[in-house]
């Protein structure tokens, strides 16, 4: 089958069956037709030859009688023979010529006067007489066309009168063989087509289960049972189904493990991000805490000043609310992602992340330009994971830009089918060689301890899991742009 497939690179068992059996059938019918044709051709020729010899033998009796009559009556034999020859030629439409030679091969009579002149000698006549048997042949003549000729010895015992040659047209014999050839060719073609149609139908029945299984596999979802009814009998298709089901189970197990590991990686990366946010968060909490401490100190010093106490308690409350807000945001970011998706407004997710990064950006005096598209439609996504993506990309930009650098964030709609969030910085950009590797896990250009090398890799996998992609454009010295593109999708 390997050789066959290398010669005929045809896909599909059915097509291969058709080609292989079709070729075999054609060859087989061709051989059978050849054998039949050859046998029938031989029979037709033998029959024609025997007919010609038989007629020549019968006519030879008249010729011999004429010879004897002429001898007895001292007549010229050719005069008498001329009558017989003319008469017989007129009666037998298939007869082309009659020639009679004496025992030495000299022509005595020929039905065609031209031939009498131009073929005056028959060198075979003495040999034919010596053999005592008819010599038959078929040949193509310029005047008569195809001719079957019998050369019959005119002799009784040792008495020889000569040789009689009678030529009959053989065009009808060739037409008969030609008709036979076409009939067999047609027969072989019809049988082959019929057999191929039959084979096509049969192979359809044979491969129907396979096609059903193929269709079921095409619609296969890893977490749903295969939509295919197992054949009731133990054939190859049933075996294939059983093996596929086992493979599906193994895939489901593997997928569960992968997803678990992926969740762990996401969480670890998130915790890493939180670690990086810790100083900012601490500062954010520390400021109101200092205020609270000052208020508490003032209240303790003059507890009877109710007016002051009421004012400071209000300030303490505001400070605590601020701390609560920060902690809530941090907890909200640190929360494990849910397994279900919901309608998420990417602008909101961006704002939440930017609030967490606000202190760090101010520390580095980074100028942030935010241009959200207020008409941005919500997408079906996991809000936590989306925040993680934006956190990773913004931290990446934060690390890239220098003091008083510039980071631009904008969102928008693309082709009415997708939304995007573009994060641009004016950092040093990414080396073209490194651009190929930035999404590889554990790839980082930062100093050891400053990054895990998983941020972009995790971000890409999250976006891809949501049916989107991340495009990156960068030139060394001219900053870098990350564009997160996500499908809008239909709200479920």
């Amino acid at each position, binding site marked *: 089958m390997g050789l066959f497939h*290398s010669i005929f690179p045809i896909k599909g068992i059915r097509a291969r069956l058709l080609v292989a059996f079709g070729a075999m059938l054609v060859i087989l019918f061709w051989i059978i037709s*050849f054998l039949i044709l050859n046998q029938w051709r031989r029979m037709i020729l033998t029959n024609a030859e025997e007919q010609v010899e038989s007629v020549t033998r019968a006519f030879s009796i008249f010729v011999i009688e004429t010879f004897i009559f002429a001898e*007895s009556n001292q007549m010229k034999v050719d005069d008498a023979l001329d009558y017989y020859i003319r008469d017989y030629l007129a009666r037998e439409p298939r007869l082309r010529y009659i020639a009679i030679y004496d025992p030495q091969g000299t022509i005595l009579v020929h039905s065609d006067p031209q031939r009498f002149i131009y073929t005056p000698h028959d060198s075979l006549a003495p040999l034919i007489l010596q053999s005592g048997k008819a010599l*038959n042949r078929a*040949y193509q003549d310029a005047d008569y066309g195809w001719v079957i000729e019998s050369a019959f010895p005119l002799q009784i015992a040792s*008495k020889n009168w000569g040789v009689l040659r009678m030529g009959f047209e053989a065009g009808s014999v060739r037409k008969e063989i030609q008709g036979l*050839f076409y009939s067999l060719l047609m027969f072989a073609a019809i049988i082959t087509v019929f057999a191929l149609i039959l084979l096509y139908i049969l192979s359809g029945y044979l491969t129907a289960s396979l096609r059903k299984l193929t269709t079921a596999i095409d619609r296969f979802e890893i977490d749903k049972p295969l939509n295919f009814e197992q054949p009731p009998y133990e054939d190859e298709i049933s075996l294939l189904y059983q093996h596929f089901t086992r493979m599906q189970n193994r895939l489901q197990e593997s997928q569960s493990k992968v997803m678990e590991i992926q969740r762990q990686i996401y969480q670890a990366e998130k915790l890493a991000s939180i670690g990086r946010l810790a100083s900012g968060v601490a500062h954010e909490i520390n400021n109101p805490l200092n205020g609270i401490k000052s208020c508490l100190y003032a209240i303790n010093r003059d507890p009877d000043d109710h007016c002051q106490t009421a004012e400071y308690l209000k300030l303490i409350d505001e400070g605590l609310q601020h701390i609560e807000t920060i902690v809530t945001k941090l907890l909200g970011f640190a929360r494990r992602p849910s397994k279900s998706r919901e309608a998420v407004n990417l602008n909101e997710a961006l704002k939440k992340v930017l609030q967490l990064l606000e202190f760090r950006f101010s520390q580095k005096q980074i100028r942030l330009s935010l241009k959200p598209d207020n008409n941005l439609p919500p997408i079906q996504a996991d809000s936590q994971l989306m925040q993680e993506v934006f956190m990773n990309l913004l931290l990446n930009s934060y690390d890239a830009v220098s003091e008083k650098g510039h980071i631009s964030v904008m969102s928008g709609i693309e082709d009415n089918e997708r939304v995007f969030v573009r994060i641009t910085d004016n950092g040093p950009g990414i080396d073209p060689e490194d651009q190929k590797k930035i999404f590889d896990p554990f790839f980082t250009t930062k100093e050891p301890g400053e990054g895990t090398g998983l941020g972009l890799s995790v971000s890409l996998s999250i976006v891809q899991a949501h049916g989107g992609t991340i495009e990156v454009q960068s030139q060394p010295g001219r900053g870098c742009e990350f564009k997160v593109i996500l499908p809008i999708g239909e709200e479920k």
Partner: protein
Amino acid sequence: MTVKSKFFLTALPLLFVLFSIFLYERMLDIKFTDVLPNISGQPRSGIGDSIVYKIGVVSRFSPSLLYRGYQPLISYLNSQTPFHFELRLNKTYSEAVQQLASGELEAAFLGTYVFLKYMDVQPIHAFLAPLSSDGQPHFRIVLITREDFPYKKLTDFSGQRIGVPSPLSFSGNWLQKYILPKVWPAGMPKPQFVSYDFHHTVVQHLIRNDLAGGVVKDRVAEEYAGKGIRIVRRSRYIPASPLVRGPASDQRVIEAISDVLTRIPDRKRMVLKEWDAEFRHGFVRVKDQLYKKFKQELDEGEMSGFISFHISH
């Protein structure tokens, strides 16, 4: 698709078409020539001698049929004697007798009836006669009828048609010339005699119900044994039809013919099957005396009722 695939996908159908065309041409080329057998030895014709000795035979049959029976015998003589013989067809017995007498013929096959008729008026002499199946140079004439016909005795044929062969043969004359005048009851209507050229024709007409009876040689009747005929009566033995020589015949030639035809070796007896049915048991030397004696008996019997045909009434 690879180059190999393209090649095969193009070449295979092309090959098939080319082969079909080749086969078509091959099948329609009906040219052939029989192969002549490897011939060794001398040509079958014995031509070469300057003198040709002619042996006459009266052509009562188709010439080619007669040649098929007589030419093999002539060919045997050519192969076994230093002389060269040829058949000469005569239209009538009288012509043959005349040519024998004149020396134009070296010998001639004559019927017994004709020889008896001419032996006293022409210088011709019998020297060979064919043997019958019992090894004697004689034959019988038989009266036959169909198996299912009721005729038991000669008078049963009163007024019926009886077929006879040539009037120049004994069979053609036996019943009406030699028997009926002697034995037929006066006043009873005689049978009607219908002449045919050949003995076989008589039998054929009898079987076809054209005749009530027929008169033929016993040898011919034997050929039809079990084919619907039965013998009513047999004649006495009659001397076989002789091979006759003339007054000018070369004695050496006559002796050579006699010697060869009467001494056919066993290993060559197969050739007898090719000869006329009358000669298939060989020949024996005879003399005129045999025929003269028979003629005398015939004449005397005709005069005195000597011939014993045992006719029952």
